[in-house]
């Protein structure tokens, strides 16, 4: 819930304050949850996007003429730098909020909780299977690339060579994935997946009254804050 609220605040609200507050909350959550080093790759992953945002907005912001400095033929404007700074903070706060969610919420717990709250077994299975499929497909792609390389396919080198290498990699990947889906479907049927019965809960998620109250409060405060700012009743710096 914290991640959802900080992501919403950072994404919807303009100005400096909202993304800075969101980043402060994310930072406190990271420290409190002792995420430490596991958080670093997520921060690094945002850097290329942030660099492109800063460069494009600083030097190419349309209609801005308040030049701050020049590099060759390019002029960085004060307006562009301000927009770049705010956009970068918003993107960073949003991305890191999502990262906090990913790192603090095991997929299985999420699915168990969603199902407990009434989400159908098919829907929760689709969510879970989709999440789990990504690493499996990545591993399969690695195996196919290795086996094709062993048969002489050049998957490294020039761009043209790499592009030519995609077809012999993609075809077995897709056909293998489809055949796996068929076998997985039959294996699920063999375990009565399509039975219409309600499933017993085997892993109730801990959820105290205080946690529930805080969650509602946080969600409500976020909605009110966004509504007040968007309608102009509250002006945030």
């Amino acid at each position, binding site marked *: 819930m914290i991640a959802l609220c900080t992501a919403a605040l950072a994404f919807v609200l303009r100005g400096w304050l909202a993304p800075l507050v969101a980043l402060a909350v994310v930072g406190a959550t990271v420290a409190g949850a002792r995420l430490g080093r596991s958080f670093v790759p997520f921060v690094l992953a945002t850097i290329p996007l942030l660099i492109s945002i800063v460069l494009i907005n600083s030097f190419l912001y349309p209609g801005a003429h308040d030049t701050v400095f020049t590099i060759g033929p390019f002029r960085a404007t004060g307006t562009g730098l301000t927009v770049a700074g705010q956009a970068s903070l918003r993107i960073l706060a949003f991305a890191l909020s999502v990262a906090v969610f990913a790192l603090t919420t*095991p997929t299985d717990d999420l699915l168990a909780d969603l199902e407990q709250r009434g989400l159908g077994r098919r829907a929760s299975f689709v969510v879970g299977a989709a999440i789990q499929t990504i690493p499996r497909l990545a591993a399969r792609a690695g195996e196919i690339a290795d086996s094709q390389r062993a048969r002489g396919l050049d998957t490294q080198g020039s761009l043209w060579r790499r592009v030519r290498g995609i077809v012999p990699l993609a075809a077995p990947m897709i056909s293998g994935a489809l055949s796996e889906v068929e076998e997985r479907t039959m294996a699920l049927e063999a375990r009565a997946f399509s039975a219409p019965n309600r499933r017993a809960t085997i*892993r109730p998620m801990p959820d105290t009254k205080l946690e529930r109250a805080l969650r509602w409060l946080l969600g409500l405060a976020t909605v009110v804050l966004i509504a007040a700012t968007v309608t102009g009743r509250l002006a945030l710096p």
Partner: protein
Amino acid sequence: MTVLALDGVRYRYAGATDWAIDGLSLEIAAGEVVGICGANDAGKSTLCLVAAGLAPGSIGGQLEGSVLLGGSESRELTPYAAAERCGILFQNAGTQLTGTTATVWEEIAFGPRNVGLDLAAIVERVEWAMSLAQVGHLVDRQPDRLSGGQAQLVALASVLAMRPAILVLDEPTSQLDPAGTRLIGQTLANLARDSGTALLIVEHKTDLLDELCQRVVVVDRGRIVLEGPGPTVLEDARLEGWGVEAPSRVRLSATLRSRDLDPRAVLAEAAGR
């Protein structure tokens, strides 16, 4: 009591012109262990799907003849009703696990939960299946971090937890190393001895069939070409012609005889040493 009865069964896949199974009749009694062998494309895997009610129930195609699962026509059963009468274990352990559970315990509980059992019954079934498949030591492990043999045993326990009267195993050891194959073989032997579950085992590795099966059936081009007690069928000289390799004890005996040695005497001498 008969748990599976196929009578004059023909089946062809959707869009196919040829029958993958062509006039096959077979009965299996409660607690019986039957082995199926044959060359590639003989119709063994199709037989598994038909016996488990998945063909045509889940994959479509055309079925003729009668397939009785626990006395009911399989085409009149829903897939989940058929799953409680006949379990099926495929070759690839990786595709049989749901991929959405955190522990082996939860993976095995997946089926019993689907059929709407209460928590006490689920616990009882999971413990029973884990003890039969001997996977108690894996209970808290993540299913996607198991070895091939361990994953296949967990898949076996997951199907057993449905308490089917008959279990169909489609080349359960084909993707396993010798240690994994031994593990599955021992588990199936215990299962047959202790649980009363009938087993229909499709295997290329005839050593495993020789060890486990009371009856062996040879399938060729969708038809049964030989059927009888395990030792008799697996010693039949025509096996090679149907693309089946005889078990190692049979091949050893043949080699010894071809060199004018008495297999019994040689084996007795080897045992004496």
